[in-house]
């Protein structure tokens, strides 16, 4: 039986070398492409009819759009509309990567920290650049909470800068750890069922336990897949709120 970590291995599907850089098509990049393609198909097909009374497809597409629009509007404030496409794209990409990863024998792109880190870095850079572009050097006032006594300002400034710098890591590790831990658990309990079966004899009586647990865990993983995409986008909106409104 293979190790529970075997599912996270990256292997090359189409070797490609451009200018000394390895840009081969791997299973990771294949599933990223698949996520983008399936998301595009989902929304193009969903919005094709533009019916006043939506069908199932259109209702699903509209529901996703509206829920993210609500998150951004409620959390990031009234000036957040131009940034909605960014947060929506990130949400849909993570959601589709997570959901594609739930298909057996597929690969979960978001279970690699490098992928989630660069997603978080996009948010971090977008927030920082937006903040400086909108407020100039006044953006630094974000690091001094309102009502701070003068004596405390240097300390609070340093703390806030530290806190600001930890953000991309906390965003990245949350998504990566949740996805990886869930998939390892699924594999461990599936492996347990196989081992019980292989052991033969009376141990077969125990077989329903890991199998039933795996059924429950699969449902839970679908929940986590959606929830983590939601949390990622809601935190991106919170950080965006800081850059737009400064407090």
């Amino acid at each position, binding site marked *: 039986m293979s190790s529970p970590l075997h599912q996270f291995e990256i292997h090359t599907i189409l070797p490609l070398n451009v200018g000394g850089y390895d840009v081969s098509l791997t299973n990771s990049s294949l599933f990223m492409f698949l996520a983008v393609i399936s998301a595009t198909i989902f929304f193009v097909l969903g919005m094709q009819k533009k019916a006043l009374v939506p069908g199932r497809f259109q209702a699903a597409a509209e529901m996703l759009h509206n829920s993210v629009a*609500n998150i951004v509007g409620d959390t990031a404030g009234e000036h957040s509309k131009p940034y909605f496409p960014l947060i929506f794209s990130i949400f849909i990409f993570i959601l589709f990567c997570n959901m594609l990863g739930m298909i057996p024998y597929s690969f979960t792109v978001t279970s690699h920290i490098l992928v989630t880190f660069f997603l978080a870095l996009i948010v971090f850079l977008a927030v920082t650049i937006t903040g400086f572009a909108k407020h100039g050097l006044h953006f630094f006032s974000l690091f001094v909470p309102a009502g701070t006594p003068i004596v405390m300002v240097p300390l609070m400034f340093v703390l806030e800068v530290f806190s600001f710098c930890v953000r991309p890591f906390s965003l990245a590790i949350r998504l990566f750890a949740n996805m990886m831990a869930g998939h390892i658990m699924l594999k461990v309990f599936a492996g347990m069922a196989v081992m019980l079966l292989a052991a033969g004899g009376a141990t077969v009586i125990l077989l329903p336990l890991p199998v039933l647990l795996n059924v429950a865990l699969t449902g839970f993983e679908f929940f986590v897949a959606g929830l983590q995409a939601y949390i990622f986008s*809601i935190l991106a909106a919170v950080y965006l*709120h800081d850059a737009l409104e400064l407090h």
Partner: protein
Amino acid sequence: MTELDKKIKAFEKTRAEAKAPMFKKMSGTNAGRVGYEFLIATLFFAGIGFVIDMQLETTPWVTLALFFIGFITGIYNAWRVMNVDSEKVGAKYKAPPKSEIGSHDITMPLGRKRDEDENQP
């Protein structure tokens, strides 16, 4: 009349204050974040300290120093999640209007009030 309005408003304000929960309402998203934000900040700074220690061969001093900085940042982050972010996430959610028809005043035929009309079979 205006004085009465003022009194009613003042009363409603005190009533709202009395009804307000002692702790700020936290959404589930935020409640789960408190411990996590603390942990990540601590580990992040300790990790950076460890890498610097490996490079400069000053084990364990930079790790220790950055661990404490991370610890303080972590506590501050947890406090932030509880107090600052709570006001942003979920708190601003407004219930959608009941329906387009219900929110507008519909002119009823003379002599009938709307409430009575709705009670009729």
